[in-house]
């Protein structure tokens, strides 16, 4: 049985390798084995796939949840919401979200007016060439559209119809291969009348 096969890496070693915590000499030794051992290689490939798609992996859920919470705060706060300078980006930082400011918005800037015919959303790259997930929500916080990209710009499809003269929110979450996530926090924009 593989579980106790001598000459093959232990479950502990494979788990440590998948976690990136195997010391370099041991990792080198393991990779040497993997390059010549097809079943062990399949274990690593399968393990990575499973860990990436595991059902209670909440990495993606946490950041949008944080952004949604911020959005809710913005929406529920008395007085005019989402004014420039009191943006949710700061609120996210105050709540201790990891490196919220490292994902900076380029366009549209907070409170800008955008074309209803499909504005392009641009942000600055985060470290580690992560995958970005962008979300557009209406003023009630209802998600209208979500898109994934490895680029730092995204244009929603024409099928997303935005009303003229309305206020919308958007935010981008970045997730790198180490599972670290950063977010722009919720940004608002208005569509042209």
């Amino acid at each position, binding site marked *: 049985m593989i579980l106790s096969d001598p000459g093959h890496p232990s479950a502990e070693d494979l788990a440590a390798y998948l976690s990136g915590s195997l010391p370099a000499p041991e990792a080198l030794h393991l990779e040497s084995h993997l390059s010549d051992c097809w079943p062990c290689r399949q274990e690593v490939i399968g393990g990575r796939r499973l860990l990436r798609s595991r*059902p209670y992996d909440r990495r993606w859920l946490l950041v949008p949840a944080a952004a949604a919470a911020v959005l809710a705060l913005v929406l529920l706060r008395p007085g005019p919401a989402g004014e420039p300078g009191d943006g949710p980006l700061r609120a996210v930082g105050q709540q201790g979200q990891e490196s919220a400011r490292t994902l900076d918005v380029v366009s549209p800037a907070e409170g800008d007016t955008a074309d209803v015919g499909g504005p392009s959303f641009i942000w600055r790259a985060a470290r580690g060439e992560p995958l970005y997930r962008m979300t557009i929500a209406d003023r009630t916080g209802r998600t209208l559209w979500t898109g994934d990209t490895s680029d730092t710009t995204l244009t929603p499809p024409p099928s997303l119809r935005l009303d003229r003269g309305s206020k919308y929110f958007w935010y981008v979450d970045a997730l790198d291969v180490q599972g670290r996530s950063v977010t722009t926090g919720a940004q608002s924009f208005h569509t042209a009348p």
Partner: protein
Amino acid sequence: MADDLPPVLSRLLTPAAPPADDEPWAEFVRLHSKLLLHVCRSLGGGHDAAMDRYAYLLEQLRRDDYRRLRTFVADGRSEFSTWLVIVAQRLCLDHHRHRYGRARSPLGDGPAHEDERRARRRLVDLVSAEIDMAALRDGGTPSPEEEFHSSEAHRALESALNQLPPRDRLLVRLRFEDELPMPEVARALGLPSRFHAYRRLTAVLAALRHELERAGSGRPVQGLARPGELSVSSEWHERNDHDTL
């Protein structure tokens, strides 16, 4: 050591728990059943097959007073769930072997089931195809001399592949033998992105080309990027453009 274990596992494995008390086990199953089912389903075969594996998995984890769970070492090198995924995969494979023997694997039939020499030849052939060994000839029917050169180049390539550092050899195998898309190659190697994997593969293939040229073909080999070039073959990018990391 028990103090370092996940609380649920610690409660389960603590001798103080009366043998008849199933609550810690129920708690363990409740907490990890989604993950275990995820592993069972990932191997295909439909609902019944997945549930068969799941039942076997639970039986094996519980067997001999949780013998397998007791082998987990909480040394901080990995999370318990990562370790559990590896163990669950292995147990599912055991289950498959018990039922169907060693001839077939739910992971697929790979080179491990073939003669090792044939597997190596296949890798050489795959890499050769990628670097367009036909370019070593001038076209048309190869002359005996050209066939000799081509055969020599294949031998040189095989030798060069065998001499690659382990990590580079693994990269080549993941890409050409396992035919993984580049994002998955990057993930398997723990690289930050597919672009890192591309860059490394470009460098490795450039080194192989250099080795081929040094070995005496004396002619440039098409399809291999020169050092510093980003891509090896536009076909790779076309094949992987739809992939996201």
